[in-house]
């Protein structure tokens, strides 16, 4: 048995870490959301003014719904790319499986910023894509709509988060006992029917985990709109960032943060329950 002192000594550093860098900031943010700013000074008087402002101003609602739309699009596209990729690797890649798996993982080692800038050089008016389009005489002048639109944000984030969606799906496909597929064929189900009645249900936990990754990470993203999005694709995290920065309206920024936090936690709670429903063994 370890002494109480020893237990205290090893649990103190992580505990201090969690308190100092998680609980205290959350408490501060929570407190700020119920305070006020007046003439550039934060007043510590408790009220719901910030929440009222957020919910009544249609500008915030528009940004919030745009963020949801972008997050939903990214999630859907990541699933449409990640699931078939994971399926192919798990069931049909044969001896090249390991190599292909590594190739999917490699982009994760490249900095987020580098990948963002890469899309800028691809999509820009002087970019690789426009150059190619003109060279092939498909267009005669640069298409400016490629960059600085919600489209480019969705494109960039889909590229970045597809491996995150791929990984849990691949893991859950790898866990399906192969005799189950043989049993399904043996009982008269063709490959299509086997996919929908055995493979898809059994990979549901991975699919949900991947979709949650993509959705939640996109919901809180502020770099993609800054790099490739422009003003037409401002997302909710950009609003928070500017409120905490240039606008110096910490209480409103905190209120929006609390709102996003509540939505995220609710979503995680919901998908975790769904995942449990779909987990067998």
């Amino acid at each position, binding site marked *: 048995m370890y002494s109480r002192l020893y237990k205290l000594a090893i649990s103190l550093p992580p505990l201090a870490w969690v308190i100092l860098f998680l609980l205290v900031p959350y408490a501060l943010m929570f407190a700020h959301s119920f305070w006020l700013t007046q003439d550039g000074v934060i007043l510590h008087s408790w009220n719901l003014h910030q929440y009222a402002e957020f919910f009544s101003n249609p500008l915030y609602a528009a940004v919030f719904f745009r963020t949801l739309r972008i997050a939903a699009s990214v999630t859907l596209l990541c699933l449409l790319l990640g699931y078939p990729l994971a399926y192919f690797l798990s069931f049909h890649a044969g001896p090249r499986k390991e190599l292909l798996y590594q190739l999917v993982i490699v982009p994760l080692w490249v900095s987020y910023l580098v990948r963002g800038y890469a899309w800028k050089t691809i999509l820009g008016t002087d970019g690789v894509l426009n150059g190619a389009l003109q060279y092939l005489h498909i267009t005669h002048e640069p298409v400016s709509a490629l960059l600085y639109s919600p489209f480019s944000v969705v494109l960039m984030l889909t590229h970045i988060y597809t491996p995150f969606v791929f990984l849990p799906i691949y893991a859950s496909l790898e866990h399906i006992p192969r005799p189950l597929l*043989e049993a399904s*064929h043996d009982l008269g*189900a063709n490959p299509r029917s086997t996919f929908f009645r055995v493979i898809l249900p059994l990979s549901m936990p991975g699919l949900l985990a991947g979709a949650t990754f993509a959705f939640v990470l996109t919901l809180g993203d502020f770099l993609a709109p800054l790099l490739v999005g422009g003003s037409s694709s401002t997302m909710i995290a950009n609003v928070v960032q500017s409120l905490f920065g240039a606008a110096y309206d910490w209480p409103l920024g905190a209120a929006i943060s609390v709102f996003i936090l509540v939505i995220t936690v609710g979503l995680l709670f919901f998908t975790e329950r769904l995942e449990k429903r779909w987990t067998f063994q």
Partner: protein
Amino acid sequence: MSAAASPSPGTTLLEVRAVSKRFGEKEVLKTLSLDIAQGEFLTLLGESGSGKTTLLRLIAGFEAPTSGEIWMSGSRLDTLPPYKRRVNTVFQHYALFPHLSVRENIAYGLRANNTPKSEIAPRVEQAIAMVRMSEYLNAKPTKLSGGQQQRIALARALVNRPQLLLLDEPLSALDANLRKEMQAELKSLQREVGITFLFVTHDQEEAMALSDRIALLKDGGLEQIASSREIYARPATAYTAQFIGQTNLLRGVARSGIADCGALHFPTGAPDGPVLFSLRPESISLAAGAPQPPDAAKFRATIRQQFFGGSTELLELSCGNNQILRARIDARGPLSGENDFVFPASAAIPVKESS
């Protein structure tokens, strides 16, 4: 089971014609041919690596033969995908779908084959009643014990009324008592439904207890195929004699109608030259008190060990010159020293040397 749909017993249901299977450099089946009769219980018996499971997988359609053909009821089988074959499999580890209830597991094949909805429920209920698991219809298979999962796997396969049921060592994961119980159930179930069973096992006792015929496989080839009694009584090769039951192999020479195998000398029909015989331990008995068969061959041996086995005992006999024989006699109390033993010369079966 409608009697009209299935051909009469005795006719050939499945023909394996010169099938071979190669995985890379390894030849797992070597031009093997085999017929399965309608309604029979045939066992593929062999050690691990003998090719028995591979042959089963070729018939199920999970693997394609490298050469040769498989025919069922007069049409080519090996070119069909598994989901178009009227063959169902009971897998070694059951392979029940964990996300489906017992009911949905059993109905899986009926749904896949677009059976009318009104027919599914009664057939599922009939199938589960057959394996006496009706009260578990709504359970999840992961909550069931091994023996119970085994029964569900059987019901899931049988509900489709296959022409041929393949069983891949289905009892190997069960403990000894449950195994015996399931053996008895399998046997009576097979009689009841009249479906042809192709059973794979490495357990020769299980094979003998269950099968109408046994096909013994060795290194991807068919060593011998015969009824359980025939293959035990008249093994064709030394390998068969040793694999199925216990035996004494007698090596020696025949000279003008007399076999000369160490301490044993007995009349034989074999032509002059080297000979090999299989003599089952139970064919040997103590000379004292035993009724002498007309063709009795007598020999003298020292009892080295005695193993009591309830109604019988196993004796380990030394006949000199390092010749050891085993004899199984009726239990009769402790024995020792030199004794005279007899066996009917006809019980020494000439066998071929195995390759």
